[in-house]
């Protein structure tokens, strides 16, 4: 039943006195999946507001000096894309219940994420050495803020990844592993999209 028809339901006793019991909650997804979707919705708000502030600050001030985007950002982007692909493959293997396939792809995906985070750190250090300090210009501050908050979300994801990897190594409870891999894959795809938006914004401003 669609949400709108659910909201049109008349719960009070009908005139003929009949009580027809409706099916309870319509469960399409597991609670953890719904939880993740709510979480993603919430952090979409977070990133949207950050990007609005980014544009707002460019428009409101007249002191914006664009940051030169370090070339390594391109490599980082490629690494994150490959990480997302590996998660996708792990998810496919999970759906087919192939534990070895999950293990390999999950490991690759996690290591690539570490690679991405290292690359982002290098990019920041390069800018810092060139004298683009955080307090010099709002463009610099936003560069560190956006990449930092995005990285923090990936680091949070890595904790879940580590727990999943541990479960896969032990090979216990395939049902739980499947759910975890599924959720990790959705989360990583989401953060890839967020990064691509941030990256395009950094390149164009």
């Amino acid at each position, binding site marked *: 039943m669609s*949400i709108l028809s*659910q*909201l*049109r*339901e*008349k*719960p*009070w*006793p009908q005139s*003929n*006195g*009949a*009580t*027809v*019991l*409706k*099916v*309870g*909650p319509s*469960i399409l*997804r*597991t*609670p*953890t999946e*719904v*939880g993740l979707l*709510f*979480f993603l*919705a*919430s*952090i979409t*708000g*977070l990133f949207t*507001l*950050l990007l609005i*502030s980014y544009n*707002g*600050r460019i428009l*409101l*001030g*007249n*002191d*914006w000096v664009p940051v030169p985007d370090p070339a390594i950002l391109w490599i980082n982007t490629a690494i994150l894309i490959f990480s997302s692909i590996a998660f996708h493959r792990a998810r496919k293997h999970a759906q087919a219940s192939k534990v070895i396939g999950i293990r390999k792809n999950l490991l690759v995906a996690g290591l690539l994420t570490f690679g991405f985070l290292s690359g982002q750190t290098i990019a920041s250090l390069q800018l810092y050495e060139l004298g683009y300090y*955080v*307090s010099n210009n*709002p463009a610099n*501050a936003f560069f560190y*803020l956006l990449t930092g*908050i995005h990285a923090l979300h990936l680091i949070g994801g890595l904790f879940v990844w580590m727990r999943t990897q541990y479960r896969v190594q032990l090979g216990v409870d395939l049902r739980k592993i499947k759910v975890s891999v599924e959720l990790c894959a959705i989360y990583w795809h989401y953060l890839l999209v967020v990064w691509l938006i941030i990256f395009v914004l950094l390149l164009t401003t």
Partner: protein
Amino acid sequence: MASETVVIPPAELPEVELYHAKSWITKYVFSQDAKVIAIQYSGTAVLIGLVGLVLSWLMRLQLGFPETFSFIDESEYLQYVTLHGMIMVVYLLTALFLGGFGNYMIPLMVGARDMVFPYANMLSFWIYLLSVLILVASFFVPGGPTGAGWTLYPPQAITSGTPGSDGGIILMLVSLVFFIIGFTMGGLNYAVTVLQARARGMTLMMMPLTVWGIFVATILALFAFPALLVASIMMLFDRILDTSFFIPMIYEMGEVIPREGGSPVLFQHLFWFFGHPEVYIVALPAFGIVSDVISTHARKAIFGYRMMVWAIIAIGGLSFIVWAHHMYVSGMNPYFGFFFATTTLIIAIPTALKLYNWTLTLWKGNIHMTVPMLWCIAFIVTFLNGGVTGLFLGNVSVDVPLSDTMFVVAHFHMVMGVAPIFVIFAAIYHWFPLATGKMLNNAMGQFHFWVTFVGAYLIYFPMHYLGFVGVPRRYYEIGETTFVPPSAADLNAFITIMVLIVGFAQVVFIYNLLTSIFSGKKSEVNPWKATTLEWQTSEFPPGHGNFGDELPVVYRWAYEYGAPENVDDYVPQNIHPDKVARKPIAE
């Protein structure tokens, strides 16, 4: 009467594994049981709320009797104002309604054993407690807590000269960041439990309005708090790393600070994009609770249940497009102000609808003037009063002269201070027997109600007048002005005396709470004869896992009161239709 067809659908998901505590510590301290977490949240919120209350007394002492108390200076006064506001809005009301009532009522009312993510739920409380401790710590750093006003507007929030611009503001912002992280963990629980863990038969439209209110408020919070998070992080950057997100070119101590171009108005937009939904994060659970308590104590179905649900959703949606009505004097484009004035007035429609429906629920009801009911009726009146002054302030041309006067203070205290607090009292008197198995003392309850209710009006009605004559808010001392008559000082003294009397009534309430827990009259099961599931548990008060061996099945909505064809004047949601005693049909 047509025969009743009951088809019990099979459960769609296996039951969630219930976490069982293995030791005293995991049962009562690091507990994953939503009811224990609810008590922890409520206890912490009430304790920090008492700090906020004492701060308001100190403020009132200064305003009522200026140049009398040597221990209150200008800086301290501003710090009291700031911390009082922040504590009451965020750390008391939000935490108590969502963390306290949300945790206690949602699983019980929707027929679940617990929240869906108990571990995250536990973390949510401990992170909340950490944020409260950080806030309290700011009282003890050099310079004291921030005195920037609860809105923390830059640039003055972080420039020297404002009290607490050293460590105070940093701890305030860090505390908010932790609060938001903790809330998000709890909020995901509340929303997903409502969507995924309801008992069989409990369709969305079978849910009690309390659950609806808390559910929609949680969603608002999940979308609104990120704005405060962004604003807090950016301001922390400005304060610690000398960036200029919000800091324009400015003179500090006679020297130009090495920053420019930042926009204080950007902060205001971020803050109020959080701040206005925050009003409804507090109000919507209150709306829900009041609906259920009124219906129970008037023995009558809530009037217009669907409209009530739709109104909650509509108010929730609209609350995201009214934020700039807090910023009419920030120099915005008049067309922009016109837009926000329009949306602000539109939000009065679903809100008024709710007020009519509460009144119509009382109409020809079998009204029991119990203490919870008294609080609910007081809420209806107070919310109406506060709402009507909101219509004044929602109009740009009326708001501009009244901006930053005591009129605004009176308005928002009526509408989102006093009114929701009344509902919290209603809810405590209503659900105290459920949580403790004891009744609160009625005489002390009546005393608490009448003194608080009458006192609140004696405090805030004169305050509207003070605002009209131009008494500004946030001023340590008015001194002698040409436009404020000397009688304002007498009125201020009167208000302060009323504040202290109402404060005394709260002491009586706390005493009542504490003594009733230990030596109160034992409550019978379901003392108010309510229909909702929280009163239908196998144990009373409900134990771990809430509902014995089998989860309840829901056969009807939560408002089956006084139906003429039934023998009893109420039928709980989980009673099988064949077991409902019907009156014989007259031939």
